C-alpha cells in the first residue's frame, strides 16, 4: 500500500505542472485528419516559444500568440508535424505518418516514440522475404540482433532453440529471457508437450519483436527481467479488407553423417586391436557377422515439410479484425519422427465513445502433435556393429518377427545383453513417444482515455495462458528393450502423462501524458499493479504393456503454484524535445520466498540526448540522426529452477521402490527436505552506454552499445556443512557474476536505384562473462563446481564453474604429444608435479562454450521484380568438448562382454590402440575450437503484381536453409551446447514458397 501511494504521488505532482503565459493575438481553428475527422489532443505550439495548447474533443483550439506572423506547430503522435502561419490557421489537416509504425516501439506496459526511447531497445519486423521454412518464431530473430544469441535446436522437427540476451546472468537459475506475448508475460515452461514453448505462436502472425536489452527498458519487469525481455506483438485488423495466403513446401535432407568404419575396415581394426592369438581376439572374432550394413543410411529418410497460412483482415461493423489459420506438418529426417501443428488466431480491436475506450482482444490457439523419434539412434547407428544385419532372419530367409520384433540384437530373448547397444532401428520402431499439446493464449485489454481528462488513461489487461499436454511413451512388446525390462520381461512398459499449465495475469495501470509547452517539456507518467498466478499440474502413470490388467508401476500427480504480485511505475520526461529522462521502479513479491525476503525493489534511470536536434547538427547533410543513451538499473531473477517452496521446511514420502523393511512389513520413508529460509532473487545491476547514428537521411543507420552487468546474490547450488541440513547441497544466494560486452548494429543501403536496391544488415557482439564469487568462504584449494557430464564413465564431468573464469569453463587434463604432434595415448601432464596423475592434475583451460564474438550478416538485392537475399552468421572463440570423439578414440573398444561396437574415424586420427585411461577421455585434446561461419539461408524471389489481370499480388520464392558451415571443428556440427554428444544433425532444407495477397 505504501508503495502504491508513492507511485500515485508522482502522478499528482505531474498533473500540477501547468503554467500558462498570456499572449496578445488570439488564434483559433480546428485540426482534422485526411478524412476530415477532428483530431483530439493535438499539441499546438507557437514556434520558438513555449506557448501552446491542445485541441479539444471537437478538434478545436484557441491560443493567444505574439502576432499574426507567428508560426504554429501542430504535432500529434502518428501524424506528420505541420507548421502553419497563425493567419492561415483555420482548418489544419494533418496527414498520417506512413513511417509511423516503425517509429513507435513497444515497451513494457506501454509504447514510446522511437526517438523518445532511452533504453537499449531493438524492434524488428520479421523478415517476410528472406526466410525459407520457419516453424518457430525465434528462428526469425537468429543473427538479426546484436547481443542476442540464438542457438537453433537439433534436427528434430519442432525442436526449440536457446535464446541468450547479453550472455545470461545466471549459473543455476534460468537464463531464458522473459517473453511477453501481446501483453501477457509467459512462463518458460508454459507449453507441456512441446519442445519449444514459443512454437505455439505462428510466425506468420507476428507483427514485431521488440528486444529489451538494458535495465532501463527491462527493469519495469523487475524480478523476471535479468535475462532481457522479448515482446512479441501480433498482427491486428486493417481498415481495408485483405487476404494473405502463404504456402511453402520443403524438403529436408540430412547432409552429415558420422565417419563410422565400414564392415571391412571395422573387422581389420578389430583384429589389429585384438589379435586372433589372444583369447579376447578369439572371443571378438566369434561375434563378427557376415553382413555389411550402413546403419546411418538405415535410420535417415528425406524429411518433408509443408506450411500453409491464411489470414483475413478488415473491418466489420466498425470492428477491425484479423483471423488467421495456420497448418504446419513435418516429417523429420530420422525415420518415425513427425510434427504437426494447427494454429488459429483472432484479433479484434474495436473502439467506443469516440475512441475513448479502445479494446484489444486476442485469442491464439494451437494444437501440436509430436511424434518424437529417439535421437539416440544417431549415435547408435554410428556404433552398431556393421557386420550384423538389420533384421533377424529365419533359415528360409524371411524375417523372424518372433525374436525382438524382427530386429537383430545382442543376446537372446531370455538373456538379452544388457550392456550392449540397441539396434538403431529398434530405437526408432520399437520405441514410441507421442505428445499432443493444446494451448490457448489470450487477453483483453481495455484502454480508457478519460472523457474529462484525455491526458489520463486507465489501462486494464486480463490475460490467460492455458495449456495441456499429454502423451504416451514406451517400448513395444517383444522388443529388445522389453526383454531387458527387469519388471516386465518381454512385455515392456510405457508412461502416460498429462500436464497442465494455467497462468493468469491481471494488469492495471494509469497513464498520464501531458505536453507542457510553457516549459518545453513533455511528461509521461505511468503507475500500475500486476497480479500473476502460475499453476501447473503434472500427472504421470507408468504401467506395463499388458493388454489386459496392466501393472501400474507408478502414478503421480503433482500440482503446484506460485504467485507474483507487483507495483510498478515509470516517468518519462522530455525537455526541449531532445533531453529525455526515464525513471522506472518495480516492487515485486514472489510467493517463492519467505515473507522476510519476498519483496524486491528494482529501480532504473536513463538519460537520452537527441544530439542531432542541437543547433550544431540540425543542418548537417551527413548526420541525420544521433542519440546518446545512458542507463542504469537493477533487475532480478526469480525462476530458480527449484520447487515453488524452497524456503519452507518440508517432508515428503518415498515411492514404493524406496521402502524399508521392518519385520515382514515394508514402510515408506518420511524424509525432511533441504531448504534455505533466506533464499531470494538474484539481482543484476546493469549499466549501458549507447550511441545511435543515422547518416545520409538514415540511409545508413548504426548503433553501438556497451554494457556492464553485475549479478549479485547469484543463485548457486552450494555444499552445505555436512550434517546441518537435509541435503548436502542447497541452492542459495552466494555468488557474483559479471557480464560485459559491446554490440554494434549497422544497416545500410549501398545502392538505391529505381530498379536495383541493395540492403545490408550487419551486427556484431563481444561478450565476456566471468564468475567473480561462488562460495560463502574463500578457500584457495576450492576449484569450483564441476558441471557438464560426459558420456563415458559414471558421474564424470568436463566443465567447471570457477571464480575468475567464464561459466562452464572446460576443466581437463593436458595431453602430451609426440614430436609429430600426435597425442600419446594415456599420457597427460603431471600438472602439480607430485609424480602421480590424479584428479588434481586437471586444469582450467580458459576455454568455454560461449562465443567471445558473434556476428550476423544479411544481404538483400532487389532487381526489378526479383530479389535475392541471404543471411550469414558467425561465432568466434567458442569451444566444444568433442565427447563423441573422446569416448570413442581408441580401436581397443572390445570389452569382451558378448557384443561388438563399431569405431569411428576418430581412431585413425588419434592412433590409439589400447584401453583409455580415465584421464585420456577427459583430455584437452578433445576440446576443439568450434568457431564457425554459417550461411543460414539464401532465397531467390520473384514478385508479381497482377496475377492473371486480377488484383492479386504475390511472390514466388525458392530458398535453401543451412546452406554451408565453415569450421575447423571435427564433429558433426560446431553449434551446440558445449559438449558434443549424439546430436541429431540439422538438415539442409530446400523450400519453395508462394505468397498471394489481395
Amino acid at each position, binding site marked *: 500500500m505504501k508503495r502504491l501511494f508513492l507511485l500515485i504521488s508522482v502522478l499528482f505532482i505531474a498533473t500540477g505542472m501547468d503554467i500558462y503565459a498570456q499572449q496578445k493575438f488570439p488564434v483559433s481553428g480546428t485540426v482534422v485528419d485526411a478524412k476530415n475527422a477532428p483530431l483530439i489532443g493535438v499539441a499546438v505550439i507557437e514556434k520558438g516559444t513555449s506557448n501552446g495548447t491542445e485541441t479539444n474533443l471537437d478538434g478545436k483550439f484557441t491560443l493567444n500568440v505574439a502576432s499574426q506572423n507567428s508560426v504554429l506547430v501542430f504535432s500529434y503522435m502518428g501524424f506528420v508535424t505541420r507548421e502553419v502561419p497563425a493567419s492561415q490557421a483555420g482548418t489544419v489537416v494533418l496527414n498520417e505518418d506512413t513511417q509511423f509504425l516503425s517509429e513507435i516501439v513497444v515497451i513494457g506496459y506501454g509504447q514510446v516514440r522511437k526517438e523518445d526511447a532511452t533504453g537499449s531497445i531493438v524492434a524488428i519486423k520479421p523478415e517476410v522475404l528472406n526466410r525459407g521454412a520457419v516453424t518457430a518464431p525465434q528462428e526469425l530473430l537468429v543473427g538479426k540482433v546484436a547481443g542476442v544469441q540464438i542457438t537453433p535446436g537439433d534436427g528434430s522437427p519442432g525442436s526449440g532453440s536457446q535464446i541468450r540476451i547479453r550472455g545470461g546472468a545466471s549459473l543455476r537459475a534460468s537464463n531464458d529471457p522473459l517473453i511477453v506475448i501481446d501483453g501477457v508475460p509467459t512462463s518458460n515452461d508454459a507449453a507441456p508437450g512441446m519442445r519449444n514453448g514459443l512454437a505455439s505462436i505462428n510466425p506468420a502472425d507476428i507483427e514485431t519483436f521488440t528486444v529489451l536489452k538494458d535495465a532501463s527498458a527491462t527493469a519495469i519487469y523487475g524480478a523476471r527481467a535479468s535475462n532481457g525481455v522479448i515482446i512479441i506483438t501480433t498482427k491486428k485488423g486493417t481498415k481495408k479488407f485483405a487476404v494473405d495466403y502463404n504456402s511453402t513446401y520443403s524438403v529436408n535432407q540430412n547432409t552429415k553423417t558420422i565417419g563410422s568404419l565400414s564392415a571391412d575396415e571395422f573387422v581389420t581394426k578389430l583384429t589389429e586391436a585384438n589379435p586372433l592369438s589372444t583369447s579376447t581376439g578369439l572371443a571378438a572374432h566369434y561375434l563378427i557377422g557376415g553382413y555389411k550394413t550402413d546403419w546411418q543410411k538405415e535410420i535417415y529418410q528425406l524429411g518433408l515439410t509443408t506450411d500453409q497460412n491464411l489470414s483475413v483482415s478488415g473491418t466489420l461493423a466498425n470492428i477491425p479484425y484479423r483471423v488467421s489459420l495456420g497448418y504446419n506438418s513435418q516429417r523429420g529426417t530420422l525415420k518415425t519422427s513427425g510434427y504437426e501443428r494447427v494454429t488459429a488466431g483472432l484479433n479484434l480491436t474495436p473502439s467506443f465513445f469516440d475512441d475513448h475506450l479502445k479494446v484489444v482482444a486476442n485469442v491464439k490457439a494451437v494444437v501440436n502433435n509430436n511424434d518424437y523419434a529417439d535421437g539416440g539412434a544417431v549415435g547408435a547407428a554410428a556404433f552398431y556393429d556393421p557386420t550384423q544385419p538389420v533384421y533377424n532372419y529365419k533359415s528360409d530367409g524371411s524375417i523372424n518377427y518372433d525374436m525382438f520384433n524382427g530386429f537383430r540384437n545382442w543376446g537372446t530373448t531370455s538373456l538379452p545383453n*544388457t550392456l550392449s547397444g540397441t539396434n538403431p532401428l529398434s530405437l526408432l520402431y520399437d520405441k514410441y513417444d507421442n505428445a499432443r499439446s493444446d494451448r490457448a493464449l489470450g487477453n483483453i485489454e481495455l484502454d480508457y482515455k478519460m472523457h474529462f481528462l484525455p491526458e*489520463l488513461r486507465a489501462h486494464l489487461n486480463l490475460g490467460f495462458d492455458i495449456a495441456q499436454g499429454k502423451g504416451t511413451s514406451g517400448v513395444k512388446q517383444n522388443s529388445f528393450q522389453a526383454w531387458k525390462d527387469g519388471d516386465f520381461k518381454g512385455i515392456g512398459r510405457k508412461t502416460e502423462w498429462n500436464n497442465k499449465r494455467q497462468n493468469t495475469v491481471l494488469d492495471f495501470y494509469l497513464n498520464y501524458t501531458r505536453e507542457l509547452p510553457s516549459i518545453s517539456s513533455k511528461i509521461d507518467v505511468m503507475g500500475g499493479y500486476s497480479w500473476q498466478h502460475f499453476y501447473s499440474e503434472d500427472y504421470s502413470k507408468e504401467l506395463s504393456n499388458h493388454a489386459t490388467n496392466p501393472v501400474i508401476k507408478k502414478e503421480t500427480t503433482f500440482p503446484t503454484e506460485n504467485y507474483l504480485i507487483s507495483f510498478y511505475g515509470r516517468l518519462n520526461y522530455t525537455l526541449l524535445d531532445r533531453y529525455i529522462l526515464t525513471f522506472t521502479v518495480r516492487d515485486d513479491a514472489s*510467493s517463492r520466498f519467505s515473507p522476510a525476503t519476498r519483496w524486491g525493489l528494482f529501480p532504473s534511470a536513463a538519460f537520452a540526448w537527441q544530439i542531432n536536434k542541437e543547433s550544431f547538427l540540425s543542418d548537417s547533410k551527413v548526420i541525420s540522426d544521433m542519440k546518446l543513451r545512458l542507463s542504469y538499473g537493477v533487475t532480478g531473477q526469480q525462476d530458480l529452477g527449484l520447487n515453488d517452496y524452497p524456503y519452507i521446511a518440508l517432508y515428503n514420502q518415498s515411492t514404493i521402490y*524406496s521402502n524399508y523393511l521392518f519385520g515382514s512389513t515394508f514402510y515408506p520413508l518420511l524424509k525432511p527436505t533441504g531448504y534455505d529460509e533466506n533464499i531470494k532473487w538474484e539481482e543484476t545491476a546493469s549499466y549501458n552506454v549507447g550511441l545511435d547514428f543515422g547518416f545520409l537521411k538514415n540511409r545508413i543507420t548504426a548503433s553501438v552499445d556497451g554494457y556492464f552487468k553485475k549479478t549479485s546474490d547469484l543463485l548457486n547450488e552450494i555444499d552445505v*556443512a555436512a550434517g546441518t541440513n537435509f*541435503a548436502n547441497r542447497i541452492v542459495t544466494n552466494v555468488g557474483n557474476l559479471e557480464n560485459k560486452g559491446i554490440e554494434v548494429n549497422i544497416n545500410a543501403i549501398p545502392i538505391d536505384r529505381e530498379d536495383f536496391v541493395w540492403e545490408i544488415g550487419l551486427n556484431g557482439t563481444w561478450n565476456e562473462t566471468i564468475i567473480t564469487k561462488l562460495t560463502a568462504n574463500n578457500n584457495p584449494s576450492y576449484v569450483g563446481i564441476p558441471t557438464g557430464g560426459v558420456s563415458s564413465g559414471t558421474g564424470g564431468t568436463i566443465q567447471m564453474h570457477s571464480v575468475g573464469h567464464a561459466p562452464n569453463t572446460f576443466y581437463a587434463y593436458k595431453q602430451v604429444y609426440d614430436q609429430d604432434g600426435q597425442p600419446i595415448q594415456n599420457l597427460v601432464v603431471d600438472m602439480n608435479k607430485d609424480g602421480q596423475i590424479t584428479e588434481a592434475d586437471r586444469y582450467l583451460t580458459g576455454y568455454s562454450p560461449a562465443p567471445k564474438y558473434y556476428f550476423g550478416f544479411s544481404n538483400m538485392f532487389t532487381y526489378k521484380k526479383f530479389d535475392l537475399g541471404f543471411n550469414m552468421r558467425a561465432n568466434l572463440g567458442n569451444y566444444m568438448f568433442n565427447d563423441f570423439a573422446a569416448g570413442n578414440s581408441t580401436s581397443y573398444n572390445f570389452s569382451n562382454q558378448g557384443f561388438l561396437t563399431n569405431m569411428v574415424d576418430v581412431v585413425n586420427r588419434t592412433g590409439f590402440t589400447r*584401453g583409455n585411461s580415465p584421464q585420456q577421455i577427459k583430455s584437452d585434446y578433445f576440446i576443439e575450437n568450434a568457431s564457425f561461419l554459417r550461411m543460414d539461408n539464401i532465397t531467390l524471389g520473384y514478385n508479381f503484381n497482377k496475377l492473371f489481370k486480377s488484383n492479386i499480388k504475390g511472390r514466388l520464392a525458392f530458398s535453401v536453409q543451412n546452406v554451408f558451415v565453415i569450421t575447423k571443428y571435427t564433429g558433426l556440427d560446431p553449434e551446440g551446447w558445449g559438449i558434443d554428444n549424439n546430436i541429431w544433425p540439422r538438415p539442409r532444407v530446400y523450400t519453395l514458397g508462394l505468397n498471394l495477397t489481395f
Partner: protein
Amino acid sequence: MKKITIILSVLSLSVLATSCLKDLDTRPLDEKTFTVDKAYADQAAYKQGLAKIYSVMAVSGQDGAGSTDITGLDPGNSQFLRSLWNLQVVTTDECKNGWGNDSWVPELNNNTWSNIKNESIDGVYYRSMFIVALANEYLKQTSDEKLNERGHTAIKAEVAKFRLEARFMRALAYSILLDIYGNPPFITEEHPIGGYMPSQIGRKAMFEYIESELKEIEPQMAAPKTNEYARADQGAAWTLLARLYLNAEVYTGTARYTDVITYAKKVIGGGYTLAPNYTNLFMADNNTSAAKNEIIFPIAFDGNKIQTWGGMTYLVASSRSGSEKDIVDNGTQQAWDGNRATEKLVDKFTYSDLSGDYPVSADKRAIFFKKGRSKEITNPLNTFTTQGWSVFKFTNKTSTGGKGAHNDFPDTDFPYFRLADVYLMLAEAVVRGGTGATTADAVGYFNQLRARAYGNASGNVATLTLPTIIDERARELYWEGTRRTDLIRFGQYTGSTYLWPMKGGQPSGVAIDAKYNVFPIPVADLMSNPNLVQNTGY
C-alpha cells in the same frame, strides 16, 4: 474533479491489490509433500521417519534406484553400502575394479586418492552425515513435548524405542566416520538445524562419545532377536561396541581387548547360531532361511521395494561379465565387468582342481570363477575378462535353487554384522591378550568356522596366532567390507610390511604413506564449514 477520479481509481486499485497479497502465502498443493506439522499429524509417521534413517544404508533416494538424497554424485555409485564397500575392499588386497572410465576407480585401486572429489569418498561421508542429520531431526521431532503437543501420548513407549534405534544408527554412522575419516564433524540434536557450523572433537573424543551413547542405549534396547527383523537390538549394539573396542588402539592409542571379549560374549550368549551352509548367508532368502540366525544386523534389500544400483545389486552384478552366458546364475540379468579378486585373496585358499571354470577347494568359502582369466592382475582397467578371478559369493538365487523376485535388483540382504565376525573378534582379542575368555574358547569358536567351511574337522587348527587370524578373517569375511579396517589394525595397510597388486599404483605393490590410513575430509565440506581441519597429509 480530476483528483476525485484519481482518488477513486487509486482506492479501487488498492482494494484489489491488498486482497491479493495473501496469495503470496501459498502452501504446497501436492498431497505427498507436507509441512512439518502435517508430516507428524499421522501417528504412522514415527515409524516412517525411523525407516528413513535405516534406509540410508540401502537406498540412494526417495524414488527408487535412479533417485538420490545426495546431489552431485551418481545415485548408484554413491549409494552408502557401495561407496563404503569400495573404500573398505577395493583399496585392499581383496579386490581391484576394472572400470577404466570412472575416475574414482584408479584412485582406489592404486591408493592414490587426494583431496580432490572422489565419488566413493564423498558418498560415505555425506551419506553417513545424512544419517546423523536425520537422526538429530528425528530426536527433535519425537520428544515427549512434541508428542504431548500432538496428543500422541498413547504411543510414547513405542516411540521411545524408536528413539533408541535412531541413536544407535547415529552411533553406527559416527563409528564409520571415525574409522574412515578419523575426525568427522560432530553435531547432535542439541545443535540447531541450518546455519550452525559443527566442529571436530578429535578422534578420541569421538570414540568416547560413540561408546557412551551405545552404553547408555544398549540396556534399554530390545533383547537380542526380539525386535522386528532388520531393526537394531542389543545384539547389534553389542557387536558395534565389540568392533569399536577391537580397533580402539587405532582410534585412541589405548587397547581395549578385554572389552571386546565382554561384548562378544554377550552377543554369543544372545541366541545366534551359525548358518549351516556358508553360501546361504549371501543368498536371496537370507532373511528367511536358517542363515538369518547368524545375521545380527542386516542391511535389507528387496527386488521390488528396496531398489538401488548400489548395495547388493552392485555386489551381485559387479563381478560378473556380460560376455558369460551364465550371468543368469546370479539370479538377475545384471553383469557389470567390474570387481575381481587379486591373487593375494585367492591364494589364501588352496585348490585341489584348477582345470575348470570354477576352482575347486576343500574350503567351501572359496566361491570364485576363473574362465579365461589369469590369477594375476597387472593392469586392472578394462581387463575384467582376462585378469583376476571373479567372486560369485553374492547372488540373487535362493538356497532352494529359485531366484529373487526381480530381474535387476536382488532380494539378498547384506549381513552387516554376523556371528562369525564376532567369533573372530573374540578369538583375536584373546590372542591379543584380552581377558574374559580362554584360548580354548577362542580356538573353539575359530574351529566352528573352519568346520563349517570344510564340512568336517579336517581344516581345524590347534593354536591361534595373529597371522592365522588376519588370514582367516580374509577367508571368512572377504568382500564383506571389513578388510581395510582389519589391515590397518594389523599394521599392514600402509607401509611395506604387506604388499598386494596395484598397492601404490604398481603391479607388484609398493609401500604407501601412513596418511592413507584415513581418507581426506571432502574438500566441499571444508569449503562450506570453516571450522573443519583437514587430515594430516591431504
